């Protein structure tokens, strides 16, 4: 995922300095592969763990699955600063809203809050989000809010720079009506394939299963990932 260049940034305080390497002046980006899958009773979300500044890996154990409420998570690909700031703002707004209602918020509400922010500041932000969670009204739901601020509900969704490599796998292997374990296995495989091929994705695979009972988190370390080829 290339660093964002916009008109404002042309007057950067860092002019070219031989002593400060180029990657230190790049914006921090979560290159990323993220995905979310609905199943009956909840959702499974997964992400890789690599954050890059140019060609340097700034954080190899990032947690890109951010809780924005008890039963609602979001996955954050794109610029690390932009997505962290948006997620913090939405967490605050959603928490406030939930206290006002005196009941847990809907996933659709959270997704719409993200959409409003991503659409209004579409020129300035580089953030595409996948919002996934469970609520009482509609059960497990996955909403995709790509860059530009569209919102669409999908049973399965992938995002980030590594997603291009696994659309085929996703289309051919997703079956509606999978169980939680099958979804976790499906996610692990998809993330592994993407991390193998995308330079901006890697590290460990982080998974979370969100159901009525709560959130169950799992980490699959690099050497425990499934092996697909002997090359």
């Amino acid at each position: 995922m290339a660093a964002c260049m916009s008109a404002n940034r042309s007057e950067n305080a860092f002019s070219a300095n031989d002593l400060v390497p180029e990657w230190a002046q790049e914006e921090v980006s979560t290159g990323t592969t993220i995905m979310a899958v609905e199943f009956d009773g909840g959702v499974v979300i997964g992400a890789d763990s690599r954050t890059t500044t140019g060609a340097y890996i700034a954080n190899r154990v990032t947690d890109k699955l951010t809780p924005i409420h008890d039963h609602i998570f979001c996955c954050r690909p794109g610029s690390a600063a932009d997505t962290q700031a948006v997620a913090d703002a939405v967490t605050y707004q959603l928490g406030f809203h939930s206290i006002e209602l005196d009941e847990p918020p809907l996933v659709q509400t959270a997704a719409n809050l993200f959409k409003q922010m991503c659409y209004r500041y579409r020129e300035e932000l580089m953030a595409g989000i996948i919002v996934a969670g469970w609520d009482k009204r509609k059960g497990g739901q996955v909403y995709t809010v790509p860059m530009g601020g569209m919102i669409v509900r999908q049973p399965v969704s992938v995002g980030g720079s590594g997603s291009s490599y696994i659309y085929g796998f996703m289309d051919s292997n997703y079956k509606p009506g999978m169980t939680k374990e099958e979804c976790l296995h499906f996610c692990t495989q998809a993330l592994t394939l993407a991390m193998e091929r995308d330079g901006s994705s890697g590290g460990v695979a982080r998974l979370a299963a969100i159901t009525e009972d709560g959130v169950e988190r799992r980490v699959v370390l690099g050497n425990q990932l499934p092996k697909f080829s002997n090359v």
Partner: protein
Amino acid sequence: MATLSVCQQPIGGFSFEYCKRNAVLEFECNKLGHSIPAARKTGTTICGVVFKDGIVLGADTRATEGMIVADKNCSKIHYISPNIYCCGAGTAADTEMTTQIISSNLELHSLSTGRLPRVATANRMLKQMLFRYQGHIGAALVLGGVDCNGPHLYSIYPHGSTDKLPYVTMGSGSLAAMAVFEDRYEQNMEEEDAKRLVRDAIAAGIFNDLGSGSNIDLCVITKGKVDYLRPHDMANKKGVRTGDYKYKRGTTGVLAKAVTKLDLEVVEETVQTMDTS
């Protein structure tokens, strides 16, 4: 999102008041054939590590202005609050001012809550301010401290993203320092081991990166105690000259001596007073 602040009122949106003025000044300067003064950058290696009882922060002490060393012994570990310290890499003025603003706001916040400030609070304040300026404030920070929830270490990038990790490095020498950390870091180290590890990491940055140099400063933060070791290790002492190029009187023999007096008369006398007040 209300923040209590004295030095800065958070106005909505971005404030780029001086960017247009700077662009005009630069254009005018270039027309006359001069270049605008370069910002002093701390080339830098800074790092931090979490050990059993707290945090060890480390930094080198070289500040560069282009290719010249502007300050051989500058202090890069800044005070934020009695239990929180922050190392800064990037533009020296930006790191200095940013940490001072947040330190001041944090003290007001601490007086308002009546509690010792938390590292997460300082982190939030820093990241929100840096994000507001969209990366134009060139401050890359390593924030560490011990609060009621234990030791915490954050790395904060100029665009406003943060990472919470057990060991972090920043600055131009961060790759060299990270290599040392990845090799020798363990969980729950003792204080002496942690200090040695940080010292070696900064030394790696100093000796392998042109933007870092001079001495190593350490700051050890534990519950109730802060050890600010400046300098902890003078890795680059200036050498002592072993020889002298001056010749002693009498080295060359004098064969003859002739003295001619010059006739001078005073033509003009002016007095210029010096203001020694």
